[in-house]
Structure formats: C-alpha cells, structure tokens
C-alpha cells in the first residue's frame, strides 16, 4: 500500500497549464526523487501538497483514504513536512525561534516562553544534522545562506507534538549546501527511510539523486513522463528522460585560450581577458564579500563594464513584481531608451527576448512577471540581465543554483562564447565539479582572504583538501 498516491493533478496559471494530469505514487520507507527541467512543475506539485496552491483538479489518497489539503495546517496534520525551494526565514528572529516556529513554544507556568528549553530543543534539532557551529540564540539574519538552509532543514526534522511526521518533502535542499553538509543531510534521510517514513526529493544534481534515491518520477512540460526504480537506469538515461534529448557533456569545451592581457587586477587577484577564474572555499570563507568588493559601487561598476550575478536571486537579483524584460534591461536602461529619457518598451522587449533565448529562458512572454517563473527560470533572468551589456568582467556568485542540467550546459556555452570574445569571469561556487569543469585557475579562500591560487586540472578531492587547508599546493599538484 503506497503511503501517498496523487492522481490526475492539474493546475493552470491564468490559462497556462503548469501541471497536466500528473500522477505520483510514494511508497512508505522510500526516498522518491521528483525530477524535471526548470518550469516542469515540480515546485507547483509540492505547493499543492503543502496546501499553499489550490489545484484545478486532484485526487489525493493517503494510506488508501481520500484526503483533501486545504491549507498549510492541514498538510502539517497529515504528517507532511516541507522545505520549500525559496528560503523562507524570519531574519529578525533567532535561529531557535525559526526552528520551533511551526510548533508551540516550550512554556513555563503555561504562559511564559521557556527560552532555555527553546534553545536546547533547537540545538538538538541542529545536532541531528550534525551541525554544532550555529548558535541557536543568534539572529537568523547573521547566518550565511547555507546555514539558513541547515536551520530550515532542522525545523522540518524537528519532531512535532500531535502529528507524527510521515513524509518529508524537500525542494532543492542541497542547492546552498557544501558537500559535507549535504552528506550529513543524506545520512538523516537514510535514517528516515530506515524508520519507515518517506521523502519526496527534488534536486538538479543528478549524481546526488542517483546515489540517494530509490525511485524517481520525471515531469516534463507539466506531465509525468515516467516513474521507476533508479537502480535500473543510468545517469544519462535520466537526463534524457527529463530533457527529451541526449546531453552527454556536462561542461562545454573551451573555444579559445585566454589572452595575456589583464582584464582586472586588485584585491589580491588578477584575471586575464577571456579567462575564467574560480573562487573556492568553505561556507563563510568570504567569496561573496570579495566579489562585492571587486564590484564596488554598482552604478559605476555597470558603467565600467562589470556585471554581477548576486547569490540571492530573490532578495538581491530580481524585482519580482516587475516583468522579465524590465529586469533584464534595468542596468543599461538608458541605452534601450529614446534619448536616455523616454522608454521604448517595444525595443526593450525585442532585446530581452533575444537575451532570454540565449539562456534558454522559458516564459510565456517577456511581459510575464518574474515572480510567476519557476526558480530556475528566475535564475536565468538574473543571468540574462548580467550578460545584457556585453560586460568585460563578469562576477558570478553561485550562478547556476537551481538551474537544470540542460540549461546549465547552455549557460556555460554562452559564457564560453563570451570569454572567447575577451570577457573575463570570476566565478564563486560551492559546486566543486563546476569550478573544475569551467575554470582556468582557481583561487582558494580561507578566513576571508585568498590562501592560494592553483591552475585547474586537479582532482575534486585535492581541491576540497585545499579548501580545508589540509594540503599544500605541491601535494595537491
């Protein structure tokens, strides 16, 4: 008997279908992957499960009984626990309060919050993930993105009173985690499976899915294409099922070697024209800060041909309530206007459409509001914006987070093309294979400064050791 069976789930946004008669069956005691390209409908399906989005039609059975999910509280009562794709934290409250938020706080005398107990409950939840470096008493605002994600995961794992957890739903939980942290998470997921509970798991990291999950359901264009045991198929099969085409390479090859001319020098590093310089380092080692310092004052940076893809697309990268084309043309709006003063929306849209095509953006039109896009497609808008002025120096902070395999390849190809024309790139990423697959050189950061710069071509383990400061350069080479 499956734990949860969804059938015939449909949902359209303003007439555009996002899900078309999707079926999904999750057995008890399995980790089930939900796969698909950006915009395939994964998050929509999850939001329906969470009672946040109302489906147009859906039949939901749990333990073979029909259920309806009207709101978030109902989903919680059914034993569902969620980690949504977009990090929803309350920055002004402490980590502990964020973790315990969904539940009744521990109390004294029936009224007053028992802060000691609250903090220890939160600390326990974090410890379950193997996290000891986060003080539950500090404000959420002071945590890095990765640490916030860890806190959110602990919140979902926290055992609630009343409604025991049956199903954990995680929408790209590892997108902001380092490899170590991800592995801690996998350990916990295995515990969950062993206890007979289930996990619905979304990730664009195929290797991770292949290693962790038992079965997968693949969505394409809002339809469930296939569902089956992962042990029976290969990495490439899975990718082919998602994209409908064969993607054999993950990283496109270099078109032309970097030139000898320096494109940028400062803050302890230099990049040549046409070069891709990687920034590696553990979480909190300061890549974000370094990129910000190189970027400097934004208005003058864009004018000088420096473009920037910030790490947090929703809070830093996008004006969610405005259309796609307005976001893409924002940094260079004057060049797309009449005389620098009056808008020429037609011209802007034409330009935005071609930029969107370059990064394989999927949207109904460039007039669509950014907030209506799937997470990965939002990221592509940030990318299109950064590339829109043909920059000389491109600063990237975790640029492909949440982008599907196929689209990643396309974005990498665009970067390769533009570096061939002389653009320099500084790429900060926690995805070590990405650094190794793209960069000419990699600068390793520790405690806020660059500790060493190495030529690419070393192994992933060697790079990781450098990040930890466990090996010298000579050993790594």
């Amino acid at each position, binding site marked *: 008997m499956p734990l949860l069976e969804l059938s015939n789930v449909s949902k359209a*946004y303003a007439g555009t279908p996002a899900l078309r008669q999707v079926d999904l069956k999750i057995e008890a005691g399995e980790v089930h992957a939900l796969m698909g390209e950006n915009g395939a409908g994964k998050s929509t399906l999850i939001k329906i499960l969470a009672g946040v989005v109302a489906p147009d039609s859906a039949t939901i059975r749990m333990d073979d009984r029909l259920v309806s999910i009207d709101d978030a509280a109902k989903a919680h009562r059914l034993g569902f626990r969620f980690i949504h794709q977009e990090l929803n934290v309350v920055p002004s409250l402490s980590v502990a309060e964020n973790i315990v938020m969904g539940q009744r706080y521990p109390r004294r005398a029936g009224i007053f919050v028992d802060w000691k107990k609250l903090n220890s409950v939160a600390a326990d939840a974090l410890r379950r993930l193997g996290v000891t470096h986060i003080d539950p008493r500090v404000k959420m605002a002071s945590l890095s993105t990765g640490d916030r994600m860890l806190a959110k995961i602990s919140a979902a794992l926290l055992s609630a009173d009343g409604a025991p957890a049956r199903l954990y739903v995680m929408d790209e939980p590892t997108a902001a985690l380092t490899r170590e942290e991800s592995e801690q998470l996998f350990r916990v997921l295995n515990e969950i499976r062993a206890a007979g509970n289930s996990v619905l798991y979304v990730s664009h990291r195929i290797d991770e899915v292949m290693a962790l999950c038992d079965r997968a359901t693949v969505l394409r264009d809002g339809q469930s294409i296939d569902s089956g045991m992962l042990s029976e198929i290969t990495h490439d099969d899975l990718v082919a099922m998602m994209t409908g085409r064969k993607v054999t390479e993950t990283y496109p090859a270099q078109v032309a070697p970097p030139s000898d001319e320096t494109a940028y020098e400062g803050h302890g590093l230099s990049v040549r024209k046409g070069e891709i310089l990687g920034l590696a380092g553990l979480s909190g080692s300061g890549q974000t800060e370094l990129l910000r310092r190189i970027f400097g004052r934004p208005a003058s940076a864009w004018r000088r041909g420096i473009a920037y893809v910030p790490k947090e697309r929703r809070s830093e*990268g996008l*004006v969610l309530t405005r259309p796609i084309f307005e976001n893409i043309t*924002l940094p260079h*709006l004057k060049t797309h206007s009449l005389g620098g003063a009056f*808008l020429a929306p037609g011209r802007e849209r034409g330009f935005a459409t071609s930029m969107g095509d370059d990064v394989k953006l999927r949207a109904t039109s460039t007039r669509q*509001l950014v907030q209506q896009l799937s997470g990965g497609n939002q990221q592509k808008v940030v990318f299109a914006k950064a590339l829109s002025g043909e920059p000389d120096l491109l600063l990237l902070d975790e640029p492909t987070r949440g982008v599907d395999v196929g689209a990643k390849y396309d974005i990498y190809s665009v970067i390769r093309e533009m570096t061939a024309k002389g653009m320099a790139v500084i790429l900060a990423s926690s995805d070590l294979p990405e650094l190794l697959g793209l960069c000419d050189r990699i600068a390793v950061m520790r405690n806020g400064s660059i500790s060493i710069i190495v030529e690419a071509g070393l192994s992933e383990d060697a790079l990781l050791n450098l990040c930890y400061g466990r090996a010298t350069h000579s050993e790594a080479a």
Partner: protein
Amino acid sequence: MTILTLLRRFGTLIGFVVIVCYFWAQLPDTFMTARNWLNITQQLSMLIVVAAGMTIVMVMNDFDLSVGSMASLSGIVAAMLFSFGYPIWLAVGIALLVGLLGGLFNGVLVGLIGILPFVATLATLTMFSGAAFVVSGGKTISGRVIPEAFGNFARQGIEIGPLTVPNLTIVALAVVALVWVLLEQTTFGRRLYAIGGNLEAAHLSGVPVRRFKLIAFSLTGLSAALAGLLYASRVASANPTQGSGLMLNAIAAVFLGMTMSGQGEPRVLATVLGVLILGVLDNGLTQMAVDSYVRQILVGAIILIAVSFSSISKAKRS
C-alpha cells in the same frame, strides 16, 4: 475565473461606477451635469495635485506626511510676499521653490541619512507647520494684500463651447499628465518602480537609489506647494493650517488606486480615480442632504465595500 480576475482588477472601479449611477438615479437633474462635474474636478484639484505628487514617492514604497503642512506653508509664503508688494510671478515662484527645497530636505533625511519616512516626514510636518505659523504670526492673511489677479485665477477658466473649464481643473490635469509621463514613460519612472519593487536589487543593478529619492521627494514637495497655492487662490487668503486636511486624503487616494493595479503598485491614473471616489461621495451625499455625521459613516462604509470586491478575490489562494 475571468469574472474573478475582472473583479480583482477592477473591483474598485466597478464600485465607483455603481456609486455614480446611484447618485445619477437619486439626483437626476443635478448630479450628472457637466456643470456639476466641472465643479467636482475644481473642488478636487488641490487634492489631485497633492495625491499625484504623493504617488511619486509611494512608487518607491516611501511616503510623505508633510505635504499638508507644506501646502499651508507655501500659501503663507506667497501671501506674505504679496503683502510685501512682490509681484505675483515672483511670490509664486519663491513659494514653489520653498516646496522644492522642503521636499529636498525630506529626501536628504530619508535617502541620505536613512531615517524612516514616517519619522522623517512627521518631523518635517511639524517643522513646516511651525514655520507657517511663525511666518504668518499665526494669522490668516486675506483681504486687500492678496492681489486681485491671484484670487481671480481660481475663479476663471477657459471657455470651451458653452462650458467654462476652471483653471484649477486645467492645472490639475496638467500635473496628472506630467506625473503620468514621468512615472510611466521615462527611464526615471521605470527605475522608481524598480526601487519600490526591490530596493536592494535595484541598487545592485546600478540604480542610483539615493539620488532618485532626493529627486522624488523634491517633486512631491513641489506638488504640495503648488496645491497650497491653488488652495490660497481659491480661498483668496492663506492660513497656516489650511492644507492640513490634504495629507491623509492624498495617501488614502493613492492606496485606493493601488487596489486597482495588478501588483498593488501605485499608478497615477488610479490615484486620480481614488480622489474622484472620495470627492464624488462627498458631492453626492451632500446634494442628497445626508446628515454630516451619518455621511461620515457612509463614506467609510462605501469605501470599504468598494475595496472589498478587489480585496476578497485577491485574498483567495491562486
């Protein structure tokens, strides 16, 4: 589905149309006449000007509580200059300059120093109002010191066929047109909307946020000063408290308008509709001789009902 979308988008507008039709039916001879509507627009011209200016800062998610006392101050400044014998153009020019500078001061406080708009403009509300009292000695300035031509401006208009379109109405329309062009048709306006949507993202995209705040607040101050002059012309006098009713109504009009825009962002034409709703209710209920006190309750209730249409459908989950 489509009806719900329509209601959500145009609920407030539909509410407005219903109100107008009701008054039309109740007051068949006097309400739906060109004369009455010209009257209404003339009566509302000051509020329209202030509300249009308020829209500019509210697009950035800021707001300006000081517009009412700036309107009082500018009227007082012009009247005092009249009493010193300044020519009209110079007195009016200086009063407008006072508005621009007062607005710039607000912009400095909010944009450069980073004080919350509510605190900053509440403080300047107090200061401008105090200044209006100090400058005028607390008195109403009226009578012969106000040049005839200044008072006549508000009484005259442009003849179009059988109708006289009042000057005040024309000024208000011109201001609305200017603000519309600024907000909807220029790169400046586009970037103001970006600031309002996500300040941090706009900043990182190279929008000079601080400079824009300075300019936007200056324009709001300027429009408040203009409204103060229109008011002074209409009452042919200046009084240090005469603008004080404008602020809440201007903000209310912008918010009423916001219920009609897709993403809940302010739009100047919607703001004008908001002003009209407030004004038409006043006009119609007065003509129907509804008791002043009961009218207050009715105005509140009708606004709530009109807005509920668009709000309820928005509150439903997507």
